[in-house]
Every structure is written in structure tokens, then in C-alpha cells.
């Protein structure tokens, strides 16, 4: 269900990633990882916030990294369709689970400003799992 595209021209040289996730702990860890990779990261808690950010002309956004399942008026697929219609050419990465998110973020790191991963995606996933487990205690 994920569309983690192979490294492509569209991510080469990309600087700013918009991370969209309604689960704050996952958004926090993925965003921190991408910042550690040298990206500038902007965070949105849902599709509506993401669209508002994408409509700001002064904000340069190169890649949208979004969760698929989100409550609200639009999920990740809906956001992806909106982008296709309104911001053609913008690279979208859809992720369906924390494991997919960690792996996709790792791949993004390898095509990012540092061209390498500061640490393995498994460490990112372990941190997400640990934080989510605390939540359900």
C-alpha cells in the first residue's frame, strides 16, 4: 500500500520536506530524523494543515511525506490527489505504517543533502515503537 518511490530526479537536491501525520509521536521522530539528515522539515498534523502550508507562496516545499490514514476531511490519498491537481510535479511519498515511514525516511536521507543516513531506519522505528508503547501503558 505504500508508494515509496525509488530515488529519482524529483528528490535530487530537495531541501524541504513537509511531514504530514496525525500521530504526534511518529511525526516527531520522523521529522527529527529527516532534520538529522540535513533536510529542513515543516510539520503538519493533518491534510488541511498541509494544504494551508502548500498554499503559502513564500514556503518552498520540495517533498511531501504523508501518512495514509488520517482523520479529518482528507486522508493521505486525498492529499495526494489534491497535490496532483494543484501542485503538479511535487514529489509525494505515502506511508502506511511506522515501519514504512522509517524505511522511506531512510531512503529520502540517502538522496538528501547529506547523501547518507545519520543512523539506521531501524533505530527510528525502535524509537517510535518505544514511544507508542509508553502511550498505551
Amino acid at each position, binding site marked *: 500500500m505504500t508508494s515509496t518511490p525509488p530515488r529519482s530526479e524529483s528528490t535530487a537536491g530537495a531541501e524541504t520536506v513537509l511531514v504530514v501525520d496525525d500521530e504526534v*509521536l511518529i*511525526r516527531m521522530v520522523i521529522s527529527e530524523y529527516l532534520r538529522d539528515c540535513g533536510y529542513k522539515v*515543516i*510539520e*503538519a*498534523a493533518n491534510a488541511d*494543515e498541509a494544504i494551508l*502550508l502548500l498554499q503559502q507562496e513564500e514556503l518552498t516545499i520540495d517533498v511531501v511525506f504523508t501518512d495514509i490514514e488520517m482523520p479529518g476531511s482528507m486522508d493521505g490519498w486525498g492529499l495526494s490527489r489534491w497535490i496532483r491537481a494543484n501542485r503538479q510535479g511535487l514529489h509525494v511519498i505515502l506511508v502506511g505504517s511506522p515501519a514504512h515511514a522509517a524505511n522511506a525516511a531512510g531512503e529520502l536521507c540517502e538522496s538528501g543533502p547529506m547523501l547518507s543516513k545519520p543512523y539506521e531506519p531501524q533505530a527510528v522505528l525502535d524509537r517510535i515503537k518505544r*514511544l507508542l508503547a509508553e*502511550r498505551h501503558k
Partner: protein
Amino acid sequence: MAASTLAERPGLEPEKLSVLVVEDEVLLRVMMADELRSNGLSVIEAANADEALTVLRSSAPVDLLFTDIRMPGSMDGLALAALMRAIKPELKIIVASGQSPRSLSRDIADEFFDKPYNAATVVKRITELLATLEK
């Protein structure tokens, strides 16, 4: 004399100090988070009090809570501040509001700002409060 800036506290590394920004207006939240990060601080962003509580109840370190008052969700910023003051008194708290919070007591927060606020002024106060941390 107490240190008033982070520069006077060489043992405190800004990137190891964490600020939780709680604001439902995404453009304002992004702007504040950006301003704080460009000052070298580590920032966690929450879109409402419920997200903030999730972060504060986790093991993610937070040294200072900067929260808006009026937000949708199960709790507003004032209730969040009061709750955190009760359960984590060492947490520094700054509250921002569109309505002048005259009736609010210092027991709830270390500082209040009226909205709209000047980001640079808020960041300065945040770094001053962080410099007083016992670390």
C-alpha cells in the same frame, strides 16, 4: 547572580534543550518552531493540548512548554498548563493568548504573552527561562 542568557550558562547546550510548541494555527506554529530552531533549540510541535499531553506523558524530554490558550480539543492551553504545573512543577511554562490573561496567576505559568506577539521577544524570554534550569 542568576544567569539570564544561555551564553552565560556554557554547560547548557541549546540543542539539548527542548521546547514544546502547542498551537492550533499551523502557520503560527511553524513560524515559532522555525524561530526557535534557528536559535539552536530542539523543538517539538503539537497541534493541540491532546497532542501536547501525549508528548509530555512520553519519555521525550521537554524543558519548556509554550502554549496557546484557545484551542479545540478536550482541553485548552490553560488547563494543560495547570495540569502540567501540578504534575511536573520543574517544567517551564509560557502561555500566549488573544485575550489579556489578567486573572491568571503565576502559579500556572512563568510568563504570559498577548497575541499577536513578537516572535523574537518570545524567543528571548524562552532562552532566559531555559538558562535558569538546574541542569
